[in-house]
């Protein structure tokens, strides 16, 4: 059957007519398979051209290479915006999709120490092959300038760099080496991996150069944000000079610390800082207490007014009245002295002026009466009174009478008192 057909393809119809029903069925089947094959071919051709349809995702832009050359539209733009596009099929066009807005993270730990076990004890030295670190300058010390001209400290740090290629994806594509994507890989990851050496190198350089300008204290405490800003600017500048199209979104210092080998010394100096503030706080407490005791909470303001020669009378009065504590005590004592002195003088004067008419009439009697009254009062308040018998016959003898003795004195003297009483 096959042989017949192959030999005489032009006589097919005549032969078919002569064929038996079995052969005819076979011929029909063959015809059908030809038709199916044709259809498949057509579908394949359609699929071939349809394969040029591609989508650009929201966070991507695409570059089309036609015969290796970047296709640009009329305005000279080489980037295809997100959406559905069509390109000629391989090998004429090649589509490169570039993730532009996604921020990629890169951790830079070239300057961190080698720690095989978490928190293991550090050795005495740093091995430059395993341990990473930066050098920082030392601070200038008064009187030591010459000796410390090349002085420096060691600092460990860990950074993170966040970057995108949204600024200029074409420049990125053109200039930055990205290895080709193998099956099963994501282009995004290939980009990250390929760019890593470049970014790490540029960042390392910037970090080394920047930290050399700062002291270790600035680096670990006060100037972190300045350092970050300076490093970021340096990295960005170099990436721009190289036309990489990479934008550094930001850089962060994840960790920055002094070497573990000198931890004790650093902690001690931090503690000294705390001690200093407690010493100072104590002094301030004393300051406040002293002034408060002397003049109350507003002592300082008042003192300012009192020392200021341009203060007005009203201000000065107000300043004195604001004072409390020792100052106000002194002032109120003075005021009560004043009152008392005046009042006493006044009372005495009044008393005298009332007494005078009577005294002029009977001076002796008035004097005597006042004397008696006063003695009575005085002797009433006296603790111990001793009455002495004047000497007779040339021999001193005492006669004592005890009147209203203070009990606390009695204990001490009672013995001798009794003896002398006995003599009498």
């Amino acid at each position, binding site marked *: 059957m096959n042989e017949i057909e192959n030999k005489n393809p032009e006589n097919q119809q005549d032969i078919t007519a002569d064929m038996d029903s079995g052969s005819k069925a076979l011929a029909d089947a063959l015809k059908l398979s030809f038709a199916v094959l044709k259809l498949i071919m057509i579908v394949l051709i359609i699929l071939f051209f349809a394969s040029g349809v591609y989508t650009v995702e929201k966070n991507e832009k695409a570059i089309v290479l036609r*015969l*290796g*050359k970047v296709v640009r539209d009329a305005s000279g733009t080489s980037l295809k915006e997100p959406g559905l596009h069509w390109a000629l099929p391989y*090998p004429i066009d090649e589509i490169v999709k570039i993730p532009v807005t996604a921020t990629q993270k890169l951790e830079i730990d070239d300057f961190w120490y080698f720690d095989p076990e978490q928190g293991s004890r550090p050795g*005495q*030295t*740093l091995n*430059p092959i395993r341990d*990473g670190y930066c*050098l920082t300058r*030392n601070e200038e010390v008064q009187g030591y300038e010459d000796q*410390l*001209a*090349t002085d420096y400290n*060691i600092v460990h740090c860990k950074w993170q760099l966040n970057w995108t290629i949204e600024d200029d994806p074409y420049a990125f594509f*053109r*200039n930055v*080496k990205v290895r080709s994507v193998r099956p099963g890989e994501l282009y995004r990851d290939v980009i990250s991996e390929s760019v890593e050496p*470049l970014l790490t*190198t540029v960042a390392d*350089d910037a970090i*080394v150069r920047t930290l*050399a300008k700062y002291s270790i204290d600035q680096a670990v405490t006060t100037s972190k944000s300045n350092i970050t800003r300076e490093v970021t600017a340096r990295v960005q500048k170099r990436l721009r*000079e*190289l036309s*990489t199209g990479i934008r550094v979104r930001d850089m962060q210092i994840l960790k920055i610390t002094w070497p573990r080998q*000198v931890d004790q010394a650093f902690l001690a100096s931090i503690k*000294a800082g705390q001690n*200093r*503030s407690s*010493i*100072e706080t104590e*002094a301030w407490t*004393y*300051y406040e207490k*002293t*002034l408060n005791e002397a003049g109350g909470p507003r002592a*300082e303001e008042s*003192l300012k007014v009192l*020392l200021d020669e341009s203060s007005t009378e009203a201000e000065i009065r107000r300043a004195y009245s604001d004072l409390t504590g020792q100052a106000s005590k*002194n*002032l109120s*004592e*003075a005021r009560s002295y004043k*009152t008392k002195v*005046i009042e*006493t*003088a006044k009372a*005495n*004067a009044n008393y*005298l*002026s009332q007494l005078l008419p009577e005294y002029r009439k009977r001076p002796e009697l008035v*004097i005597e009466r*006042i004397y*008696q009254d006063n003695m009575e009062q005085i002797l009433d308040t006296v603790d111990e*009174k*001793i*009455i002495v018998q*004047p000497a007779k016959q040339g021999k001193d003898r005492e*006669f004592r009478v005890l009147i209203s003795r203070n009990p606390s004195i009695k204990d001490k003297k009672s013995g001798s008192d009794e003896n002398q009483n006995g003599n009498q």
Partner: protein
Amino acid sequence: MRRLPKLILVTAIVVLLGFKLCSYQVRETESALITRFGKPIAEKTEPGLYFKLPTPFDVVHKFDSRLQVFEGQQEETTTKGGEPVIITPYMIWQISQPQLFFERVSTDREVQKFLLSQLRNHANAVVGKHYFSEFVNTDPEKIKFEQIENELLQALKESTEDEYGITVASVGIKKLELNEEVTEAVFERMRADRQRKKEDILGEGRSTATRIRTDADKKKQQLLAAVESRVIAIKGEGDAGAAKYYKMLQDDPELAMYLRDLEALAKILENRSTVVLGAETDPMKLLREVPELESSKPKDSKASKQDSENKEK
């Protein structure tokens, strides 16, 4: 009639194959060099489609024209002042002239070797021209890192660009370290530094504290002195006020003095005093005898004067 599609198909395939054999694409990121029997005949740095003779005659060598990073080896070298220092230089480069590059350094391994030796030689030479204090210095103004990197860039450019077809885009030092012995010395110095700093901090704190305390005491004294002057003024007012009444006492100064003395006596004997009295004094003599009273005859004032001389213990 039936042969036509087949013919077209066969022709198409042949043309395509021929086209494939006789053409090549240069991508935007590449450059290419064509060699005929091993001899370079053309250099293509512009992207696009190009034709050539089939493979046995013409061979296409493609070169990546994008930036590449080459990291040098970590190496100990010495500065001008003789300090040992470990640097890790790097360079960012690209192939700018494929033919030159192909002729001088063709394989990948050779490129690595070539770049390493170039970088090492120039880095060592440049570092050797500078003092360590130009890398790190207490005075940031004296640091010449940038200048050193520029010198290295110039040196590398001169030796690679024209001769090897390589453009050096950037060079630098990505790590600056010390050998192990030096780090130990640095730690020692850092500890000493901290110790000094600690003393400084404490000393500063103490002197500040002293200043604060002194200030407090001074202000207290000033305040109390100001108050004292006010106190004296007030007391003075009191005394002046009292003086007005003293004039009234001048009507009979003797009596006034007598009253004043009594008052003083009372005040002196007020607290815990012991008084020794003669038994003859008034009114103690009443203890011994009943007085002989003579009616309406004033007493002798001498007795009272004697009494006021009573002794206080």
